[in-house]
């Protein structure tokens, strides 16, 4: 085994070993449990750095895929292994790096909570599952870890299991993701067996590298077959995409994400910044070669992303819970990434995913610090003026906000710009509209983040409990993440600005697509007009927030009164939850109750009727057979006559 593959297995299994150790041995020893979990993550991170040095190093001669046969039935062979290319190493670096910060932060935030060891065991299991998706070499392995992420997120979201709302949120997350997985199952089966039926067992495979060869084949036979079945293959691709829709919380399967804020704040940071929700975007990057040939697939992806970005940004305005604002902001930013994917710019999506992982983890942990400092108060209406009492939290939060709003030179500016410039030259149907939506979302993002910061940190303190700054175990990770949020942009400053720019994009080209560019694929360039439009939008958004909330020059109440129906629509989150609740309460419950009714009143009746008939028949026969010989003789004679008559008639 090459060292690179070995690093891969270490990255993957270190968190699992931590989970196993905690579960088996140290459930009663809190401190040891958290150190084991952090140790596991540290080992994974270390191996990851070594792997990154090799993959991104000057000497690029390495074998990215290491696979073994896991299971083989008939002709179906399911491999297991690690894929260590630029895409997965980059992604796992984010997962382990940001994860490490969150693990450390948790030791401060979770102080005094019950089930400390359980928390760290679940956190490690979650990281293992996520790394499994990232390093996976094939569709089945991805699906397996995809589901494991689902179950470990269920455990983490429902961490406060005595609270019904937390349990409901966990269940909702799991079931919504199951619906996505349902589509994904279909996509995988359809893809695999279409290839089997057309190209035979030899060529069909679950492995990404082998699939990529088929999509990029030069053999005219394969090209012809792939073209003949492009409709089916595009359908399979979109079905697999439903899995990503659920995990990356795109409309209409986004409903679980805001509720998932019921989990502890570090969990929100882990899931909604660096890991779970990023999995969908990552998967599309990994499978981008399957999306690229089909304009319809790209169009669906782009529109789904654009719509999600816009809808979620709207809802963020009317939230009072600081974590909920961030949750809807996450939805919106994920929509951004998906929009970039649909525009044929997976590198831009990965770039934004990376910067977003840093600044959103920073913002979530910052909000966690605020919540901790305000004695578990989450309502922004009961905060205010915290910049004086929590200076470190304040400054780091400001950096995160600037990055999220897309103010140059913070990292978010560069990645947002990459997405907007991709959208401005995109090819999918309605691309100009999507570009307009993207700019609008940039404005809205700046505005709602401005509102959030002003309400939390400026003005007068409106709460009751005395706020205080958080301990070093919490502010430390904040500083680390803030630094990353400032500088992560250098990963891919566009070529037009810096000579060494576009590094990330360049590194990812081989991993996300073939070495050739597809017609729908957009090569990133720096467009000054887009940068100006984006910056103006963001500044205008901040200006609006300032006028409404800080200076109070314009009255927010009269504005709300003017757009009452829209405000209600946003407050009700477009009635998605109501619609789903109606479906569950009416459709699902009706089916269950109908089947229950059939069970009790139809099937049992039939069985009882059969039994009753038998009994009745037995009773009648008993009346006949009453022991009188003459009746038997009569019956026998009668029978004989019938038989003879039958025979005669038959002849």
């Amino acid at each position: 085994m090459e060292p690179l593959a070995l690093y891969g297995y270490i990255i993957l299994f270190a968190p699992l070993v931590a989970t196993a150790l905690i579960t088996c041995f140290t459930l009663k020893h809190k401190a040891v449990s958290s150190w084991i979990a952090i140790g596991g993550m540290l080992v994974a991170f270390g191996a990851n750095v070594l792997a990154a040095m090799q993959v991104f190093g000057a000497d690029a001669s390495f074998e990215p895929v290491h696979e073994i046969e896991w299971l083989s039935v008939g002709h179906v062979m399911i491999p297991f292994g690690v894929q260590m290319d630029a895409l997965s190493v980059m992604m796992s670096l984010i997962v382990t790096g940001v994860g490490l910060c969150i693990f450390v932060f948790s030791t401060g935030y979770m102080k005094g909570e019950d089930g400390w060891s359980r928390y760290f065991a679940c956190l490690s299991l979650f990281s293992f599952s996520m790394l499994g998706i990232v390093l996976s070499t094939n569709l089945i392995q991805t699906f397996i870890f995809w589901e494991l992420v689902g179950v470990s997120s269920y455990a983490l979201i429902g961490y406060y299991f005595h609270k019904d709302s937390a349990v409901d949120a966990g269940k909702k997350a799991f079931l919504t993701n199951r619906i996505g997985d349902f589509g994904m199952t279909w996509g995988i089966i359809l893809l695999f067996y279409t290839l089997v039926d057309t190209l035979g067992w030899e060529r069909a495979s679950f492995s990404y590298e082998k699939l990529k060869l088929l999509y990029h084949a030069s053999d005219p036979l394969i090209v012809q077959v792939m073209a003949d079945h492009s409709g089916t293959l595009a359908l399979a691709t979109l079905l697999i995409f439903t899995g990503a829709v659920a995990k990356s919380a795109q409309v209409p399967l986004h409903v679980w994400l805001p509720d998932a804020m019921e989990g502890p704040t570090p969990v929100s940071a882990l899931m909604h910044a660096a890991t779970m929700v990023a999995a969908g975007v990552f998967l599309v990057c990994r499978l981008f070669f399957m999306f690229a040939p089909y304009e319809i697939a790209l169009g669906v992806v782009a529109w789904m992303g654009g719509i999600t970005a816009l809808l979620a940004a709207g809802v963020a305005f009317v939230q009072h819970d600081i974590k909920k604002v961030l949750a809807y902001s996450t939805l919106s930013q994920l929509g951004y990434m998906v929009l970039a994917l649909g525009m044929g710019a997976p590198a831009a999506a990965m770039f934004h995913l990376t910067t977003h992982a840093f600044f959103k983890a920073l913002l979530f942990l910052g909000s966690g610090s605020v919540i901790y400092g305000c004695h578990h108060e989450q309502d922004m209406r009961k905060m205010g003026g915290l910049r004086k009492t929590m200076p470190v939290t304040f400054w780091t939060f400001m950096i995160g906000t600037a990055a999220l709003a897309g103010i140059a030179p913070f990292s978010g500016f560069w990645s947002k710009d990459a997405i907007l410039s991709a959208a401005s030259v995109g090819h999918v149907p309605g691309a100009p509209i999507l570009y307009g939506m993207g700019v609008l979302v940039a404005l809205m993002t700046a505005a709602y983040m401005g509102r959030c910061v002003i309400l939390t940190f400026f003005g007068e303190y409106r709460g009751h409990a005395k706020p205080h700054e958080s301990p070093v175990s919490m502010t430390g990770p904040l500083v680390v993440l803030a630094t990353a949020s400032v500088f992560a942009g250098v990963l891919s400053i566009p070529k037009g600005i810096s000579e060494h720019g576009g590094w990330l994009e360049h590194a990812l080209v081989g991993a996300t697509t073939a070495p050739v560019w597809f017609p729908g694929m957009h090569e990133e360039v720096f467009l000054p007009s887009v940068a100006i439009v984006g910056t103006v939008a963001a500044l205008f958004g901040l200006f609006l927030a300032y006028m409404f909330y800080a200076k109070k020059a314009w009255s927010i109440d009269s504005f709300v009164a003017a757009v009452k129906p829209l405000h209600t629509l946003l407050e009700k989150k477009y009635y998605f939850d109501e619609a789903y609740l109606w479906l569950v309460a009416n459709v699902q419950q009706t089916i269950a109750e109908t089947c229950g009714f059939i069970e009790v009143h139809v099937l049992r009746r039939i069985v009882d009727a059969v039994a009753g008939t038998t009994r009745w028949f037995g009773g009648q026969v008993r009346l006949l057979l009453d022991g009188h010989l003459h009746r038997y003789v009569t019956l026998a004679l009668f029978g004989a006559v019938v038989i003879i008559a039958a025979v005669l008639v038959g002849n």
Partner: protein
Amino acid sequence: MLLTLLTFLPALGIPFLFMTKDVKTQRMIGLATSAAAMLLSIWLYFQFDPELTVLLADTSQFGFSVPWISVGDAFKINYSMDVDGVSMLLIVLTGVLGFLAAVNAMSIQKNVRGFYAMYLLLLTGMFGTFVAMDLFLFYMFWELMLLPMYFLIGIWGGPRREFAAIKFFIYTMVGSVLMLGAFLAVYFQLSAAFAAPEFAGQALNAFSIPDIIAHQSLIFPGNDALRMVLFVALFIGFAIKVPVFPFHTWLPLAHVEAPTPISVILAGVLLKMGGYGMIRIAFPWFPDAVVTAWPWLATLGIVSIIYGAAVALAQTDWKKMVAYSSVSHMGYVILGLASMTEEGINGAVIQMFSHGLLSGMMFLCVGVVYEQAHHRDLNRFGGLLKLMPKYTFVAMIAFFGSLGLPGLSGFIAEMFVFFGAFKSELPHAKVFTIIGTIGIVMGAVYILVMIQKVFLGEPREKQLHPFKDLSFREGVTLWPLAIGALALGIFPTPAFDLIGPALHSWRKPFVAEIRGTEREAGSLPPGLIEIRDAVEAVQTEEGK
């Protein structure tokens, strides 16, 4: 002779039960006997070579056949037994569950001697059914299971035990009668056919299951209608045991009333008799009928999957919910078997084994709580995670396994069933499979709702005696199954290696039948079929 030993080893313990009056010693006898049977079954597994797939051949490892009862020349019953990979897997399952249920049964107080006598007799019946290769012998063991089960439910069961026992008995009896009728028809037809001069000197026996399978085309050749009738009779006979919708209504009642160890055996092993009977008897005797009946079989499979899940969701009795989950899970077995693809049938058999482990665990889990709470009302629990953390941990393995979580056994089985059903060349296979996959989501719904009601939240009722966490004995029964479910989920290859060769040769007549039907229907030009067959034959050879 090892198979005879395995079969009658449990029964050997019965006389010892009657030599002592001491209840504890009786328990020890029951336990030791079932432990010996388990060890023997595991030992057999390690000795077994799965590549030997021809039953009752000279090469077979454990197989043998000796004349037993003969009436003149016409009526020859052999005492013959053999195993292939499929029955070996189920024998191991029987051995393990048989022992674990016996451990669980140590809490039984009422008439311990009688209980273990019946229980050991039941074990003998189950092993016998899995190894019998003679129709008469098979039927005898089949009925032998029925009687002890009747008493075990009827005497040691819950409040409505007698009604449940009678319902179980009559239902199963109806199945047996249908089966017996078909057996006799086949026997008389084949014994006449085997008398033909061309078979002289081949010593064919119309009671021998392998002989019947090898010459199934001689059963009323050309009379498709009659063959279909016989297949349907056999299918219903076994479907009642599986149970397949709509023949399942005995199951919830029997489960609810049966004591915990008997529920474990009932769900874990007895339900497998149905699937086993289809694999060993109903399907290979009438491959043409199976292919014709595919749309019906697939429909019954997916209706069982979805209907079972929906009814499970509507239950308030925890044990009933678990019982209906069995209906849902066994639907996968029917769908997979009927698909007649390598993936589908392997998945179906693994699903049988996996369901044995997981449903056994689930019933044990329900039993642990029931013994303390004395009720099973889902709306009256809550917060068990806080009160019984160890118990919750192992219970989660069972319930998430049942939900089809990757890493546990159920996932592998369901995945291959869907692969196989989708790939099947039979008509509308893709439509059936799409509908069937709805079961994935529905399964998650009822399991999660149950977990929320029982394990999470706050306790809804004050308990007279506070719940005690998993005792040592309960741990001993649950953990081996949990480890088995994990092992099968993570390293499934040994199980597939065990059943693969047997199922590979089992499938051949069906494939021939499907291809033949295609040829008749003209769905593919004749030349193409031959080319495809030739290509596949070459591929298969290369694959070896």
